[in-house]
């Protein structure tokens, strides 16, 4: 095994001792939600395929919204999408040096969390 990592780098891998600032939480959340969204691609392609294949399979897909576990998957996917969406827009703004100072960066990270919670609640309210 060839690796370019330092052998003597400090290891602070006690997850209970690592305390990320909110900007760090938004950042790792962007990565985690991205991985989740990639894994869910086949599910959404399958549903798109079904919805266009025949009248009957279109009905089957429409009726999935009555299925509890499908709703759970849909809500989690929507949450992942909303986090990825708002955190991604924040990163695009950071590229333009908008919100790069420490105080503004912390505020922007809080706004990302607030927006994703609001949109998640809106969708849950709409589904119920």
């Amino acid at each position: 095994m060839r690796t370019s990592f330092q052998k003597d780098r400090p290891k602070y891998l006690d997850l209970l001792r690592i305390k990320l600032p909110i900007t760090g939480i938004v950042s790792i959340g962007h990565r985690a939600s991205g991985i989740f969204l990639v894994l869910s691609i086949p599910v959404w392609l399958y549903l798109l395929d079904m919805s266009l294949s025949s009248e009957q399979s279109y009905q089957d897909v429409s009726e999935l919204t009555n299925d509890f576990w499908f709703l759970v998957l849909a809500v989690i996917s929507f949450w992942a999408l909303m986090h990825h969406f708002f955190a991604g827009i924040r990163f695009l703004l950071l590229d333009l040096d908008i919100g790069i100072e420490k105080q503004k960066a912390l505020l922007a990270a809080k706004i990302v969390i607030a927006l994703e919670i609001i949109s998640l609640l809106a969708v849950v309210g709409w589904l119920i």
Partner: protein
Amino acid sequence: MSWRAGGIRPWIVQRLSALVMVAVLLTFMATMMLAAPSNFQEWQDFLAGGVWNTVLIIFWLSLFAHAWIGMRDVFMDYIAHDALRFVTLGSFAFFIIAMIIWMFKIMIMAETL
């Protein structure tokens, strides 16, 4: 920075594909709120040919480019073992190519209905 893999080109593709997806998502959501297709026939007509068939293909291609670069970065960050990283990247490339073929099958089928 190199213009090839690992350099500035994937960085730019990642941001351009993000902007394309934001634009399509917002337009799609607005369209669904204003005039959502309410049955099978209207849904088929909505995606058969016309603007939305093309727009959705562009959306999917942006998504696959975005997913490839994002996951490539994740694998390169966390998999230090060369052979394992190579196999993982190869398997993921196979997955993305399969998804692209499936997507084209769906979108072309929708167009010729």
